[in-house]
C-alpha cells in the first residue's frame, strides 16, 4: 500500500494508535476516537506492529469493537432509567389529576346538563357536548382538560411498556413493565435497586407501614408495591408473606442481572414460577382449613 505507514498519535490516526494490543483501553479508543478520513487501517496496523497480520488485526478489532459496543449499549440503557422514573411519576400525577379534574367537571356539568355521569368516562361525555353559554363553555372546557390528562396518562403508560424492557429486561419480564418502573423509581434508579437487599425490595412503597413498625406501632409490613403483582395478590393471605419474600428475592436477582450484565436469563424466571407454585400448593394440601377465606385481607 502506498499510503503513509507512519501511523502517529493524532486526531486522524487509527483506533489502534499507541495501544498495547492487550490493553482494555482498546474499547475506549473505539468509542472516543475519530478521524475525518479513513485509511488502510489493517495494513497500517500490521506495519506498525500492532497486529501480526490482517487476520490478527481483524480478530483484535472485532474483540475491541464488541467490548466497546457492549459497554456503550449498557451505559445508554442505564441512562434510560432516569426517563423511566420521570415517566412513572408523571403517569401517577396525570392519573390523580385527571380524576380530580374529571370529578369537578362532571359535578359542574351535572348542575347544568340533564345527565351527570362521573369520572373520566363522564368527562369524555361532557367534553363531547356543544356548549351554548358561558358556564357551559367552562364546564366543557374543564372536562376536556381532564380527558387530555387521562390520554396523557395512557401515552405515558405505553412509553413505560416500551422502555422498561430495554432498561431492565429481567425485571420487566418478571414484574411487568409498570411494576418494574415503579420499583426503579422507588429505589431512585436501577443501580440503587440492584444494590438493595431483598428485604428492602419486598417493602418498597410501604415506607409508612415500615416506619410505624420500627416505631413499635404496627406489625412489619409483608409487602410494598409488589403487592400489585398476581404472585402476591392472588396467593392466599396466609401464604402471602412467603410469596412476597420469594418474589422480592427473585426481583432483586433480576435487578442485579439487569444492572451488571443486561442479558435476559430464562432460568431466573423458571425458578420463580416453581417457587410460587410450591407456595400455592400449600393451600391445596390444607384445602379444608382455607375454605371460605376471601381473597381480600
Amino acid at each position, binding site marked *: 500500500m502506498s499510503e503513509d505507514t507512519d501511523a502517529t498519535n493524532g486526531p486522524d490516526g487509527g483506533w489502534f494508535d499507541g495501544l498495547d494490543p492487550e490493553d482494555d483501553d482498546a474499547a475506549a479508543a473505539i468509542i472516543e476516537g475519530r478521524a475525518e478520513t479513513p485509511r488502510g487501517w489493517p495494513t497500517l496496523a500490521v506495519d506498525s506492529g500492532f497486529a501480526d497480520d490482517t487476520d490478527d488485526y481483524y480478530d483484535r478489532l472485532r474483540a475491541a469493537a464488541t467490548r*466497546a459496543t457492549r459497554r456503550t449499549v449498557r451505559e445508554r440503557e442505564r441512562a434510560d432509567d432516569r426517563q423511566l422514573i420521570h415517566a412513572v411519576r408523571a403517569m401517577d400525577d396525570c392519573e390523580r389529576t385527571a380524576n380530580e379534574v374529571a370529578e369537578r367537571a362532571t359535578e359542574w356539568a351535572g348542575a347544568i346538563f340533564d345527565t351527570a355521569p362521573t369520572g373520566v368516562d363522564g368527562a369524555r361525555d361532557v367534553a363531547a357536548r356543544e356548549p351554548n353559554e358561558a358556564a357551559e363553555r367552562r364546564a366543557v372546557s374543564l372536562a376536556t382538560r381532564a380527558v387530555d390528562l387521562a390520554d396523557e396518562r395512557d401515552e405515558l403508560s405505553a412509553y413505560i411498556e416500551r422502555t422498561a424492557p430495554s432498561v431492565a429486561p429481567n425485571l420487566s419480564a418478571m414484574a411487568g413493565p409498570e411494576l418494574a418502573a415503579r420499583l426503579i423509581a422507588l429505589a431512585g434508579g436501577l443501580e440503587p435497586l440492584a444494590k438493595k437487599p431483598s428485604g428492602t425490595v419486598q417493602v418498597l412503597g410501604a415506607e409508612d407501614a415500615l416506619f410505624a413498625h420500627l416505631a413499635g406501632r404496627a406489625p412489619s409490613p409483608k409487602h410494598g408495591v409488589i403487592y400489585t403483582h398476581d404472585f402476591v395478590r392472588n396467593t392466599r393471605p396466609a401464604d402471602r408473606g412467603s410469596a412476597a419474600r420469594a418474589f422480592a428475592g427473585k426481583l432483586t436477582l433480576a435487578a442485579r442481572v439487569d444492572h451488571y450484565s443486561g442479558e435476559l436469563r430464562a432460568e431466573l424466571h423458571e425458578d420463580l414460577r416453581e417457587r410460587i407454585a410450591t407456595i400455592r400448593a400449600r393451600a391445596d394440601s390444607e384445602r379444608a382449613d382455607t375454605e371460605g377465606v376471601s381473597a381480600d385481607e
Partner: protein
Amino acid sequence: MSETSERLPAGVERRSIEGRSRLATRGEPVYGEPTADGWRTWDPNRSKLGAMIELGMDHGLVGDETVLYLGAAAGTTVSHVADFAGPTYAVEFAARPARDLLSAAETRDRLIPLLKDARRPETYGHVVEADVDAIIQDVATRGQAAVAVRNARFLAPDGRLLLAVKARSEDVTDAPAAVFERTLDRLRDRYEIRETERLDPYHEDHLGVIATLR
C-alpha cells in the same frame, strides 16, 4: 425471478428449505429463520438487500468482500452478509437493537459491531477502513441520501453502494415517487445511479438503488 443465469455471491445459494426454493446462507440462525443442512433462509420480506437480490438487481456482490453496513439494526440482514462476505463493519446507533446485533456477531468472527451514528462518519473513520468493496445502507431516518453521500469516503473507486430508500422515513405525506426523485437527485452529488427498482411486493414504498462513485 430465479433464472439459471442469476448471479449470486459465493456463499449465497438457492436451497430447498421447508419445501420451497429460497435464498440462503450458511451460519448460525439469528432470528428463528427456517434452516436446512446448515443453511439459513434469507427472507426477502424481512431484508431489503434480500429483496434486491431476489428481484435480480445487479448487486455486484461476489463473496468475501469488505463491507460497510449502515443501519444494521438487530442484525437480521447483516448476519447474512457476514455469512458470505469478508470483514463486515456493522454500524447501528440505537442501543436496543444493538443488543441483538451483538448476539448475531457472537458466532461471526468477521462481523464488527459499531454503536455509531451513520450521519457522523468521522466518529468511526478511525475504525472502518478505506476502500471497502460495498456500502450497504438501510437506515430509517430522514436524510438517507445525505448519509450515503457522507459515507462515500469509505467506498473503493470501483465499489458499489447498495441502498434501500424508505419513502416514509423522508416524508410520510408526500408521494413515494416524489421522495425517491429527490433522494436520487441528492445522491448524484457523489454517485452515479446504476439501477433503481421498487422493492414491492417485499417492502412497500421502498426503492432499491445501486450506485457507483462519480
